[in-house]
């Protein structure tokens, strides 16, 4: 047997988890060839070294640490989901009331185009689509939105406050931000009694007014 064949046969024995010294042909060659004998010896030492338990024992608390990690990961996911939900509601509300907030301004504040502009703009405009709500329905809807805005702007938003508690001082409190946004929207609705604006910085959401607005 040549050394190359010995090497292949040795690897094959190890692959099949067979002790190389149980193979007579390997042993015959190794007895005559010093280099290959060293390889067999090295292999035996290597496997002996692996068999001895090398590692210090693993902590028995690992299981509880894993459960703690899972619980905190789950809590973090829940907080993130709540924040997204609160933001989605705020955006939806904002989108819903936006047309009503713009309504009266469009009637009163928009300047009429001059005769020159009218003369230049000769392209015929398609007829406007007919409103899908009757005047009574629109008024009813407007009242509902106003009631809703009255509710959300007259007391702190509880959902946001729980998010703010978690966020700490890292962002401007969402409860305050949205409170003022809704309050402003309420004031811009047509037919709203008070025309006098409230300066945001002059108000506090909290009855004790202890914490300054960030």
């Amino acid at each position, binding site marked *: 047997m040549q050394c190359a064949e010995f090497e292949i046969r040795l*690897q094959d024995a190890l692959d099949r988890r067979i002790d190389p010294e149980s193979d007579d042909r390997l042993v015959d060659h190794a007895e005559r060839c010093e280099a290959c004998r060293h390889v067999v010896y090295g292999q035996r*030492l290597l496997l002996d070294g692996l068999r001895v338990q090398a590692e210090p024992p693993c902590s028995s608390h690992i299981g509880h640490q*894993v459960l703690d990690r*899972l619980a905190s990961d789950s809590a973090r996911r829940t907080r993130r989901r709540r924040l997204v939900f609160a933001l989605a509601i705020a955006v939806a509300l904002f989108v819903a009331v936006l047309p009503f907030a713009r309504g009266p301004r469009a009637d009163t504040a928009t300047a009429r185009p001059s005769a020159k502009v009218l003369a230049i703009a000769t392209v015929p405009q398609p007829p406007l689509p007919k409103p899908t709500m009757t005047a009574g329905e629109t008024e009813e809807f407007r009242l509902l939105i106003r009631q809703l805005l009255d509710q959300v702007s007259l007391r702190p938003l509880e959902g946001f406050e729980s998010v703010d508690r978690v966020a700490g001082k890292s962002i401007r409190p969402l409860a305050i931000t949205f409170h003022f946004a809704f309050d402003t929207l309420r004031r811009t609705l047509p037919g709203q009694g008070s025309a006098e604006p409230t300066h945001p910085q002059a108000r506090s959401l909290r009855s004790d007014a202890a914490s300054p607005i960030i």
Partner: protein
Amino acid sequence: MEDLRILVKCCLEDDHAAMLALVDRFRGRVYGLCYRMLSNREDAEDAVQETFVRVLKNLAKWDSNRDFEPWLFAIAGNRCRTALAKRRRRPASYTIVEPLPDARPDEQAAKELTEEVQLGLQRLRPDHRQAFVLFHQHELTYEQIAEAMSRPLGTVKTWIHRARGELIRFLQEREVVQESSYAMRRV
């Protein structure tokens, strides 16, 4: 295998006792791999923790018709490679092998041999090291290792052969393998 399936089913139903039992059942073997890969107790324990967090989060993805250990060791191997990559980015010098506790004189030689082997393992490429440890210490088959490492069987076999060769050369360089004293024994 059937009891493992039941255990996994209970874990999926958020049974904490079952989760603890699953971790307890495999922590020793996972830790064995992580310690061989990282050579540091704290890093190995962190990797074990990360492994089981991922295992429990992704347990529903395990195909119960296949062996559990290759799937488990695939996750553990990934965690170890991530830890090794982080370590490479760390500028400070690093303890390569933790010394084992002092042994009696008759155990001294075995202790030294174990430390030399562990030192030699650190010189291997991480993928060669992982394949070698899974074959020789965890006794996984080549097929299971190929599955755990997502590599072809032939590649895994080549890696293990190379790892053996490099480790023996390392032991010779360190004069752990000494020429005169050794005679072949017929088993």
